[in-house]
């Protein structure tokens, strides 16, 4: 439900960042979403597409990288991906593990292209 707000925040960040790159236009914005972040990818894409329609950002692509939940074992130091909520260390079977990632909701990168003939050339050669 709040994916509209999230999409809006992503687009605001894109517009702010674009102020720093005159002579270019944005092609793709990359976000990282943890599986514990309570964000529905499809809903986010839907909202993003709806919000850029018929705007200057209409061709902007959204890249989503999903980050799994990772834990670190307090006993043996092993980092591992938690599947099916099983947070037991696969190496030493300890239950003393702490979450180190998986609730990301981050802007990762923005791809920009220069305006002008070179940009057209670059596009057609792809």
């Amino acid at each position, binding site marked *: 439900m709040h994916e509209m707000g999230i999409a809006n925040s*992503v687009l*605001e960040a894109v517009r702010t960042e674009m102020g720093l790159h005159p002579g270019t236009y944005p092609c793709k914005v990359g976000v990282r979403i943890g599986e514990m972040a309570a*964000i529905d990818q499809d809903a986010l894409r839907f909202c993003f597409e709806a919000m850029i329609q018929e705007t200057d950002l209409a061709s902007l692509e959204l890249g989503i990288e999903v980050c799994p939940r990772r834990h670190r074992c307090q006993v043996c130091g092993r980092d591992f991906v938690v599947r099916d*909520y099983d*947070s037991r260390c696969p190496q030493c079977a300890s239950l003393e593990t702490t979450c180190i990632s998986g609730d990301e*909701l981050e802007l*990762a990168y923005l791809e*920009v*292209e220069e305006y002008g003939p070179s940009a057209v050339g670059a596009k057609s050669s792809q």
Partner: protein
Amino acid sequence: MDRVPLERKVLSENDRIAAELRARFQEHGVLCLNLISSPGSGKTSLLERTLEILPRRDRVAVLTGDIQTENDANRLKRFHFPVKQITTGGTCHLDARMIERHLADWKLEDLDLLLIENVGNLVCPSSYDLGEAAKIVVLSVTEGEDKPLKYPSIFFKSDLLVLNKIDLLPYVPFDIDAAAENARKVHPGMEIVKVSCLTGNGLHEWMMWLGEKRRAYKSLVQATVN
């Protein structure tokens, strides 16, 4: 094509305001708790019972969020503590700016405890930091014991699970041990209290948890000052 690294939170503006709020709460020694649940789990009832039990002179205030109506604030005002309703007008969660705005005419130095009742929703409020010291998730026994697995984010991020409406256990097929186990699968070591806001059963444990949290926060704040 150039790739520019952004490397910041999507909700960095919300997080900035939340961090300011957290610093202000700490400066004035105000323990802020953010109560989250689906609609109808009993957040308001839990607050009613809490305000009923707390001594009148206690320095407590409540912000209560809903999409529409002042109903909750009206329910909670009976206990003579400062209460303010936040009506979001459609937004499915509270955000830090709403908290900042609604705190504007309260003096934080007059408070020790700020209870925030979020909009009834088990999903979206978990993404928005309000500057709270802890989130509390309320789940009622009419909702199904697999809710922690279906909505892991909020159970993962909350310090305490309040299992409410335990007076209904004889009438509903709810496995309370499975619910606790599921919550601890998502959040190992999660604290759980079982209450009935209707009969008052278990409220003692909830008030003990709250009292302990307030003491711990006070020592933390004092340690920071010294």
